[in-house]
C-alpha cells in the first residue's frame, strides 16, 4: 500500500465563480477530504491562487492534479510535499480583557509564543498567531485553561521552493497566438 501524507495542491486559475465548485467536486468524487482551503490573488493580476491541503497518496495527488488542470479555467496546478513548500497558518484567539490584567501568566504566554495582540477593548482582546499547526495548537492548549471566547484558524497558505512559472506560460500564450 502506498503511504498517505500531506500534499499541498497549488492552483493558478482565472477568476471564475463556478470553479471552486468544479474543483471541490473532484475531491468529493474520490472521497479525498480537504484539510484546508485558501483562495486568494496571486503574483499575477486577475489570476487566483488556490492552496488546498489534502492527506492522500502520491498517485492520487498526481491524478487529482491532472483532473484539476483539465478544468478549462485552471491555468496550472501543482502538488508538493511539506518539505517542498514554505507554509503557514494564522489563528485568532478572542479572550476576556480582565484576564490580561488579572492573570500575569497570559502576558508571558503571548510573549513566548511570538504572537501579537491585534486589538484590546474593554471586554476582550484578540491575539493573532502565525506559524505552523503545532505551534498554534500549543498556544491553544496554553490559553484554554483561562477560557477562550472564540478561536479560528485560517487555511494553509504556502509558497513552493520550486519555481512555478505561470507568467512565462501566460506570456507564451500571447506570443504563440
Amino acid at each position, binding site marked *: 500500500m502506498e503511504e498517505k501524507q500531506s500534499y499541498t495542491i497549488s492552483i493558478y486559475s482565472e477568476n471564475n465563480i463556478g470553479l471552486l465548485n468544479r474543483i471541490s467536486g473532484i475531491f468529493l468524487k474520490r472521497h479525498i477530504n480537504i484539510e484546508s482551503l485558501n483562495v486568494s490573488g496571486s503574483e499575477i493580476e486577475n489570476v487566483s491562487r488556490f492552496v488546498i491541503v489534502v492527506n492522500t497518496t502520491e498517485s492520487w495527488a498526481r491524478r487529482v492534479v*491532472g*483532473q484539476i488542470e*483539465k478544468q*478549462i*479555467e485552471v*491555468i496550472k496546478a501543482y502538488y508538493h510535499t511539506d518539505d517542498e513548500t514554505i507554509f503557514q497558518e494564522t489563528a485568532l484567539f478572542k479572550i476576556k480583557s480582565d484576564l490580561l490584567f488579572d492573570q500575569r501568566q497570559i502576558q508571558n504566554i503571548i510573549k513566548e509564543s511570538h504572537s501579537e495582540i491585534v486589538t484590546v477593548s474593554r471586554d476582550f482582546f484578540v491575539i493573532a498567531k502565525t506559524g505552523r499547526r503545532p505551534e498554534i495548537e500549543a498556544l491553544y492548549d496554553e490559553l484554554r485553561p483561562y477560557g477562550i471566547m472564540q478561536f479560528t484558524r485560517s487555511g494553509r497558505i504556502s509558497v513552493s521552493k520550486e519555481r512555478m512559472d505561470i507568467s512565462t506560460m501566460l506570456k507564451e500564450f500571447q506570443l504563440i497566438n
Partner: protein
Amino acid sequence: METKTLTKKQEKKQTTMRISGAEAVIHCLLAEGVDLVYGYPGGAIMPIYDELYKFQDKLHHVLTRHEQGATHAAQGYARVSGKVGVAMATSGPGATNLVTGIADAQIDSTPMVCITGQVASHLLGSDAFQETDIVGISTPVTKWNHQITKASEIPEVIAKAFYIARSGRPGPVLIDITKNAQFEEFDFSYEKCTGIRSYNAKPEIDKSSVQQAAELINSAKKPFIVWGQGIILGQAEEELKQLIEKAGIPAASTILGLSALDSDHELNTGMVGMHGNYGPNVLTNECDVLIALGMRFDDRVTGDLNTYAKQAKVVHFEIDPAEIDKNVKTDVAVLGDVKESLQELMPLINSNKHEAWHEEFKKRYAVEFDKVIKNDIHPEKEGLTMGEVINQVNRASKHEAVIVTDVGQHQMITCRYAKFNKTKSNITSGGLGTMGFALPAAIGAKMGDPDREVVAVIGDGGYQMTIQELGTIFQTGAAVKIVVLNNDFLGMVRQWQQLFFDRRYASTEMVNPDFVKIAEGYHIKAKRVSKREDLEAAVQEMMASKEAYFLEVKVEKEDNVFPMIPTGSSVADIRLS
C-alpha cells in the same frame, strides 16, 4: 467574463446590429455553422423559440418528445457528422431532463452544446417557478458551463462554448441564459473563439517521446495495438491503417473505436473488453509491447488492473494529459493529437510482419468461433439468437450502415458481430451505458448523414425508456430502421442474475406491450418475426424501405453473451461459457 480568450474576426466586415439576446443566440449558432438543433420549449426559453420561428428556413429545430431525447439525438448527430450537436431546453425540469445525455456525452467525449433557459436574473436564488441550479447540477458532467445574465455576454460565451466543445478531447458544454438576457437588446457582433489562455486544447508533441515509441515498436516481437474512439475523434483512421499495415501489428478496438478500421481488415482482431473477443483479450497479457491509441483503459476494457498487461511495455498515444498513467502505468506517453503523432511516428517505423504472433490471434479466433460465434450467428437450436439477426443485418447492409445500439445484451452482441466498412458507424453509449440512448441517437445519426442507412438495434427494456421518440420519427420523417430484439427480459441484468445471483430473477422479467401496434400507432411500418425462416426476408424488407421501419424480433429469452470477463477478473481469465 474574466477568462482571457482569443478570437478571430469574421471574414466579412464586422458589423454590429442592435438585436435581442434571443436573436443573438440564433446568429451565434448560424455563425458556428449550426443548421439543426434538437430541443423542447418552455417558459424560460420562449424568446429563443420565438426567434427560431423567425429563422426556421436557416436553422431547423427538431422537437423531440423528451429533453433526454434531444441530447441523445444531438449526440447521434455529432458522432456521425463530426460536428457539434446542439440541444435546447427550458429551465427547471427541462434542464434537469438533459442531464443524462450530458453525462453520456461527457464520458464518451461527444461534442455537444446545450442551451437552457433560466428564470430572470432578479429571481435567481429565490426558488422561483422552474428555477433550478442547472449550472451547479451539470458541473460534474460538463467540460465547461456558464450562466449568462446579460445579453452582451452571449456572443463571447457561445463562441467559447463551441470552441471548448469541439477542441482537444471533445465534450459537452452547457450555457444557461436568463430570460431577461434573452429579451435585452444590445449591439451584437460575433467573433469566433480560437484559443483560451487557461486551456491547452492540443498539447504539443514531444518528438523524443515519438522517437522512444518508435524504438519500442520496432524492437517488439509481439506488438499489439488497442485503439479507441480517439482515432475517430482525431480523424486518424488512415494513419491507424498505415501503421498496422507497415509494422504488421495485430490490432483490436475498444467498443467506441469500432468502425475506425474495416471489420474485415486482415489485422483487425476484433474488440477488447468485457464481452470482446477471446484473442485480443487473452493476448493483451502475452504481448510484449502494448500500443494504446486514443483510448483510456476503462475498467470494462482492462478487467483487473493488477493483472493487466503486466508483462508488456505500454505506449500510450493520448490527447488528454489526465489520462496518462491514470489507470495503466505507461512506459512511453505520446501526448498530443493522435493523427499528428502517428504522422510523426510513421517514418520512424520499420516495415515488419509478425506472422507467428498474428497466428496466435487466429488460433484464438478459431476457438472462439467454435465455442461461441458459430452458435451465435448460425444457431442450430430452435429459438432465434440476437447474433443471427445482426448477421442478417450485415448481409443486407453490405457493412455500410450506421449501427446505433442501446445498452444490454443486444448491444454487446451487435458490437461483436456488426460489420463496418466506414468510420463513424458504431454509435453506442459506451462509458455511461445509458438505456434509452439508441432510439433518439438514431434520429440524430440519420440527420447527421441523411444518405446513410441507419439501423438502431435496441432491447425491449431500453426501447421503452425513450419509446416516445417514435413521435419525432413520425413527425420528421427520419427514415431510421428500428430493430427491437425482444427477449421479454432486461437481458443483461438477467444474465448476471443467472451467473452470479443463483438465478434469482429479481425484477428483470418484462411484460411487454404489442410493439408492432405501438409503432403503427405512430404510422410507422412495422413487423414482428419469431421464426427463423421469416427473418432474412423481414430484414431485407426493412432495409429496402425508404421510410422508417420497425422490426420486432422475438429472440430466445434466456441466452447469454459470451465471452465474458467477470468484473474484477483478469483479461486472461475470460470465460467462453
